[in-house]
Every structure is written in structure tokens, then in C-alpha cells.
């Protein structure tokens, strides 16, 4: 509850600062979408990474609880992935005049990552619940984690110039003024908080669901 409130406050503060405090970026009047699109994309990567970490813990320690944690993190990653694709498309329509550009490797790689993790659910629900499904899902989640740095680095490696280059994380530090970077950090903290709050709620719900199922089996 506290996390959700803090996340909501930070997101509102980020939106307010983006619209009212920072000066308009020359040549891109739709730049405030940056404070939404980039934090959402980085949060999606963080969720997929968290899911892979939990999957690794499951394979390493063979503790069943990590299966649910990994699954929930990937579930959140897919939600943030949808948001990344939709907000990116809206921004692209304004700046490039197209909703989607197939020649941009950054976009296509993110779509591949998103589809890979969307297929995770198909794999998961095509197998009966149990340790075998948990291990299979964990291995799949770990394979997907390889795509996260590839997708993240594609922005640097891509030769196309359609998608903007790295402005937040680069060798020379943030490629933006201090006030823009501050607003970005506020928005990113808010987005991570939102993901954390959703993850906690979803995990609690799934655990409760699982406990109720066990209870029903023992009572019937």
C-alpha cells in the first residue's frame, strides 16, 4: 500500500515536472512521452531480469516458491512490455509519422523479446503443474534473459538512425541536461515503484490462490 502510494506520487510528480517545469525540447514537442516510454521499457527489462534471477534461484536451490516469484515477475514484464510497445508507437507516429518501423533493429529486437516472454505462458500452461513445469519454465525464463542485454545494447549497436541513440545510459554519462535527467529519475523511480507494488499484489494473490487450492484438496 505504501509502495503503491509512493509510486503514484512519484509518477504524478514526474508528469507534473515534465509538463510544467522542464523547458520544451527543441524539435520534439512530444518529448514528455520520453519520461513515460523509457522508464516503462527499463522497468520491463528489470522485470524480465528479476524473473530470470528467480528462475536461477529455483534451479539452484530447488525451492518451489521461486517458481511463483519468477512467473509473477515475467507476468509484470509482459504488462510493461505492452506499455513500452504502445507508448513507443504513439511517440513514433508523432515524430516519424508511422506507428511501427520494421527496419529499426531496436524495435524489432524488443518485439522479439516481448513475444518470447509471451510464449512463456503458452509453455507454462501446456504442462501439468508440478516440479517439471517449474523447471521447464525456469529454463525458458533464463534463455529469455539472454535477449534482455541484446535488446538493451541494440540501441548502441544498431546502425539505423531512426530510433534515438542512448541518452540515459552511455559511456559519457547521461546525454541530457540536469533538469531533464532529474525528471527522468523521478519518473523511473515511480515506474519501478509501480512495478514493485503490482508484483507484490500479484504474488500475494497467486500465493493465496495456491494455498486455497491445497486447503480445498485436503478438505474434499
Amino acid at each position, binding site marked *: 500500500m505504501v509502495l503503491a502510494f509512493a509510486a503514484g506520487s512519484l509518477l504524478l510528480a514526474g*508528469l507534473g515536472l515534465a*509538463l510544467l517545469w522542464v523547458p520544451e525540447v527543441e524539435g520534439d*514537442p*512530444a518529448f*514528455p*512521452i520520453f519520461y*513515460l*516510454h523509457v522508464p*516503462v521499457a527499463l522497468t520491463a527489462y528489470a522485470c524480465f531480469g528479476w524473473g530470470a534471477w528467480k528462475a536461477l534461484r529455483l534451479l539452484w536451490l530447488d525451492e518451489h516458491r521461486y517458481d511463483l516469484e519468477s512467473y509473477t515477475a515475467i507476468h509484470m514484464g509482459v*504488462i510493461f512490455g*505492452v*506499455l513500452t510497445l*504502445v*507508448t513507443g508507437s*504513439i*511517440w513514433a*507516429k*508523432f515524430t516519424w509519422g508511422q506507428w511501427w518501423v520494421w527496419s529499426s533493429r531496436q524495435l524489432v529486437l524488443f518485439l522479439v523479446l516481448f513475444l518470447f516472454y509471451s510464449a512463456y505462458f503458452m509453455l507454462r500452461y501446456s504442462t501439468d503443474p508440478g516440479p517439471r513445469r517449474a523447471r521447464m519454465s525456469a529454463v525458458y525464463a533464463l534463455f529469455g534473459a539472454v535477449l534482455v542485454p541484446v535488446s538493451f545494447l541494440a540501441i548502441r549497436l544498431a546502425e539505423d538512425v531512426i530510433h534515438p541513440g542512448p541518452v540515459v545510459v552511455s559511456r559519457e554519462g547521461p546525454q541530457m541536461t540536469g533538469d531533464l535527467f532529474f525528471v527522468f529519475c523521478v519518473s523511473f523511480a515511480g515506474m519501478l515503484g*509501480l512495478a514493485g507494488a*503490482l508484483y507484490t*499484489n500479484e504474488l500475494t*494473490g497467486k500465493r*493465496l*490462490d495456491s494455498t*486455497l487450492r491445497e*486447503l*480445498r484438496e485436503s*478438505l*474434499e
Partner: protein
Amino acid sequence: MTRAETFVAAAYLVLLAVVLLYVVVYAFKLSRLEREVRELAELARERNERKAA
């Protein structure tokens, strides 16, 4: 409202819509869990009554 403002508003509304959709889905899930808890409590009570009898 300028064209840019419309696009910015649309992007933020998408986030709001997704969060609201999540809340609605979660509300349905909570009501299902509540129903299941009630059913299990009923089952447990019947079981106790049978034991007592």
C-alpha cells in the same frame, strides 16, 4: 490542444488505462478468492459437524 499535446496525453492515458484494467481484473480475482474462502469455511464447518455427530 496542440497535436503534440494530444499524443502526450494519449501515451499517459494508455498507462492509466492499463493500471485501471489491472485494478478491475484484480477486483474480480479478489471476489473469486473471497467466494472460495467462504466455500472452504462452509466445508470445514460441515466436516466439524459431521465429526461432532
